[in-house]
């Protein structure tokens, strides 16, 4: 099992991998219909030539190079080549609008940008007037760029070729490259990851090489990852999750990273490559489950009955079988039949049948969703982490999995709970601070060197596992003092296929209200089957039958809340369905689709007041940006629905 040891920078790790796993595949990319692949040895040669080429372009140690685009081999190689020259790669979200891109590039003072294709190049060119220090743009796909002026625009392929010929011609260049690899040490800044930041402008998290490598060594050992594993690289490059799993852990464990053909063939490519290690934020698991259920709706009745029967069986025995706890023989037999008939085919169609370890993180996952995947035999585990901790703060070991906790502290991670209930930690993967922002760094750290997570939580007495309640700032109290955790409620609501997004209000108010977003796919399919006519998303969202259907789901959530002592009081009294989908382009969601609660509260203030003043409908008009950047306004009259509160189980018993 490969470890870091004396290899304290990524270029050194690359050389080690070339020595130890030279012929093993390092990277695969579905292109032109088949999976092209490169071994570690081939990758090392390409990186060496690419680094030489970049050096000749004038990239100096300490300078930053931005990387904009989706998961393409040449963009990952740009990061490796930059680190070989001890320069700092700065990945940026590929779907960021021009202004966000301009802010990050200016803040990071990037002298070079690696763009994926014509679309990204145009975005960078449109803001290049605000980027004085940017001198060259390199690109991966030449499509459509023939007509551009090639003084500042160079193809990555050409740089590699130029580097290769230069290395062959001048031996001194080769020595310079080797010298800069030797000179590299653990304390170099390996990468700057800009957080999406639910509040305020993005912050650049600086991570040292030693931070990343030590953290990755612990986790690869924790999950016994070897060079035989395969990972699908499909998440945004700039997200800590993808950088950790596809790039860093790949270098440390020596396993193979597979890039899909394009962003809309991810599902098909995952099915083909069959990854063994899989990370996804909860909304991807949610989307998968919704599509799965919608497809099953249209199956033949016998198949539907068989499917739901075996899902119940999975709910009864799945968890025990997965964690090896004792199961009665009949249960074990019926589960085995279920595995052959439903669970394996299900995972096979989703491309997850070879997954040995799957993690979900970045946001709290609804307990029912989590339990569903484990029950069909997917070894799904929760991890709690942040970009500032370079992902891992806690992660659940294979044996001990509880749906509502995020597991014990990750190896070598020290966690404590401050008196305000905020979780604080110190870990090998801890960040050095925010780039060019000492003020914010100071805020984020405590005097004695702990990082403040901003999340509230506590250690469960029995299992010593950390339990995250909510964002520290968002956990509130109802007027009568009962605790109100909006995130917890929202996750329960989002488990139901018809509800895509939910925002709950209740802090310092008499009761809890919720604003919901219906899932266009699931509800449209339901409307089609029950031949409910609708012209637009807005009309569907306001349809009385849709309100009834969603009301049933909210009632179910209230019933499950009634069973929990701590949160019984926080049941949802009134709710409305928003007339438009929450969208990152309107600033209502972050780039990783997390809800920006405060911004929404201000933007829909008129709706919130209507919720609390007993009105039965409210008018709202909001400004919207369309796909091509034009602005427009949408006005609607939104109806509000009241719910009865389910008394706590005990009292119900007495009253009956």
């Amino acid at each position: 099992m490969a470890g870091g040891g004396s290899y304290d920078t990524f270029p050194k790790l690359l050389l080690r991998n070339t020595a130890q796993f030279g012929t093993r595949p390092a990277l695969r990319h579905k292109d032109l219909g088949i999976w092209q692949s490169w071994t570690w040895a081939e990758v090392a040669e390409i990186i060496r030539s690419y680094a030489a080429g970049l050096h000749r372009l004038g990239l100096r140690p300490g300078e930053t190079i931005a990387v904009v685009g989706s998961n393409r081999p040449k963009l990952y190689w740009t990061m490796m080549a930059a680190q070989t020259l001890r320069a700092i790669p700065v990945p940026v979200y590929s779907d960021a609008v021009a202004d966000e891109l301009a802010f990050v590039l200016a803040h990071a003072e990037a002298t070079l940008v690696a763009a994926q294709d014509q679309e990204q190049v145009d975005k960078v060119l449109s803001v290049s007037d605000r980027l004085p220090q940017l001198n060259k743009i390199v690109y991966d796909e030449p499509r459509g760029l023939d007509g551009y002026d090639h003084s500042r625009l160079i193809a990555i392929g050409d740089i590699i070729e130029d580097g290769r010929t230069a290395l062959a011609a001048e031996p001194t260049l080769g020595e310079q490259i080797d010298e800069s690899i030797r000179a590299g040490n653990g304390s170099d800044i390996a990468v700057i990851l800009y957080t999406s930041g639910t509040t305020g402008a993005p912050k650049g998290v600086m991570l040292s090489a030693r931070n990343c490598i030590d953290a990755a060594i612990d986790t690869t050992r924790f999950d016994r990852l070897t060079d035989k594993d395969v990972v699908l690289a499909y998440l945004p490059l700039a997200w800590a999750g993808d950088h950790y799993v596809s790039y860093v852990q790949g270098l440390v464990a020596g396993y193979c990273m597979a890039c899909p053909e394009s962003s809309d063939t991810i599902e098909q490519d995952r099915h083909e490559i069959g990854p063994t290690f899989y990370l996804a934020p909860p909304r991807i698991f949610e989307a998968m489950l919704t599509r799965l259920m919608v497809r099953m709706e249209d199956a033949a009745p016998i198949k539907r009955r068989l499917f739901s029967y075996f899902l119940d069986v999975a709910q009864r025995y799945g968890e025990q079988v997965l964690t090896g706890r004792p199961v009665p023989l009949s249960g074990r037999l019926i589960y085995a039949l279920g595995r052959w008939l439903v669970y394996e085919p299900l995972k096979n169609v989703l491309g997850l049948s070879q997954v040995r370890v799957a993690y979900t993180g970045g946001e709290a996952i609804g307990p029912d969703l989590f339990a569903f995947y484990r029950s069909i035999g997917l070894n799904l585990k929760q991890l709690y982490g942040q970009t500032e901790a370079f992902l891992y703060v806690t992660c659940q070991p294979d044996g001990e999995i509880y749906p509502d906790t995020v597991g014990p502290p990750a190896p070598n991670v020290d966690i404590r709970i401050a008196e305000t209930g905020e979780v604080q930690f110190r870990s090998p993967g801890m960040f050095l601070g925010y780039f060019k922002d000492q003020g914010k760094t100071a805020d984020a750290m405590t005097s004695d060197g702990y990082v403040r997570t901003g999340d509230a939580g506590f250690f469960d007495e029995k299992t010593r596992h950390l339990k995250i309640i909510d964002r520290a700032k968002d956990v509130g109290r109802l007027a009568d003092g009962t605790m109100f955790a909006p995130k917890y409620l929202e996750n329960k609501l989002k488990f139901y296929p018809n509800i895509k997004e939910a925002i709950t209000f209740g802090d310092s108010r008499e009761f809890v209200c919720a604003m919901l977003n219906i899932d266009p796919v699931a509800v449209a399919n339901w409307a089609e089957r029950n031949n409910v006519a609708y012209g637009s998303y807005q009309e569907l969202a306001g349809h009385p039958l849709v309100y009834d259907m969603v009301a049933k789901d909210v009632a179910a959530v209230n019933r499950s809340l009634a069973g929990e002592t701590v949160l019984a009081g926080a049941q949802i009294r009134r709710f409305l369905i928003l007339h438009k989908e929450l969208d990152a382009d309107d600033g209502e969601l972050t780039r990783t689709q997390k809800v920006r609660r405060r911004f929404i509260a201000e933007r829909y203030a008129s709706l919130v007041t209507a919720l609390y003043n007993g009105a039965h409908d409210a008018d709202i008009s909001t400004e919207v940006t369309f796909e091509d950047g034009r602005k427009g306004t949408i006005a609607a009259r939104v109806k509000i629905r009241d719910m009865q509160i389910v008394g706590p189980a005990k009292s119900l018993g007495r009253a009956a």
Partner: protein
Amino acid sequence: MLYREAGQFKATYAEDMAIFPIRQDRIALAVLLGIAFIGVPLLASFRIWPFRTDYLLWAILLPFLILALAAVGTNILVGYCGQISLGSGAFMAIGAYSAYKLATGVHIPLAWLGFAIAIPPLPVLASILLGGLMAACAGILFGIPSLRIKGLYLAVATLAAQFFFDWAFLRLPWFTNYAPSGSVNAPELDFFGMIVRTPVERYLLCLLFVTVMAVLAKNLVRGNLGRQWMAIRDMDIAAELIGIRPLYAKLTAFAVSSFIIGVAGALWAFVYLGSWEPLAFSIDRSLELLFMVIIGGLGSIMGSFIGAAFILIMPIMLNVIPTELGLPLSTQTITHLQFIIFGSLICYLLIKEPHGFARLISIGKEKLRLWPFPY
């Protein structure tokens, strides 16, 4: 349900274009070949259950293999190239008789030129293959009209071939080496010293022929020539406009199809019948082959095998089942019933799935791959 395709990715174009890209299909094929090449001979030689008598080999497996090969040939012409042919029986006959003549020495007295062409008897294998070649030449000859006539009209041109050769092999004694009875005996099946006599040996010989030629046919059909045929079948004007020469495409289809049918004819005569007369290759044989291709599945090599199996086993089932159930039926009513059931089954199948069994099976396979989802 049976398919676990996650993780089977294609790293080279050769893998992507393989006949059986999915591992589960490859396993199924290996099992099938295992049974065919090892299972059957073993069971037969030790007279174990299904092979206690030679009936299964002689009456079912042997004819199935040879007719399947002929069906593959017919499918290339009718299924892949869209040229309707009612002359397959004649091409089988040409294959058989020319192989017979070549195996027993050819003597063509060219009286007016004053000399005669004499070819010594050739080894059996050579004569079978050359017989196929002769059938191919006849195929090309009768393929020429297909350049001008299309569709059902073309059926008549091939019908002309059928009746002409029926007549020729009956009336021109030269073909039967002036045999008085009009029927002809197969030469000794001597393959490089090994004499093929017992049913198991005959079965293995045919199995070898069929496997090799089916693979070659599948390669042709998947390759560029196959695409040309299918282009001519789907829309010959568009095919011509992208550079396909209709002459070359149609005649190669006729040639390849007739070659395979010719070899099948030679095998049918030499290995299965032993001694035969032209009636063995009459219009009924052509219709039977056309049935196999259409019910099995037009444009599918596997479909030809399924069609052959169906058309062969169905009549046997029809008269085994009534006796099995103890229904006292006179042989005459049985044949009449057989006609009625056979005809209605054909109509039912054509209505249920015009593209034949092959399409039904591929739909089934698709459903299994997507199990439990409908799409």
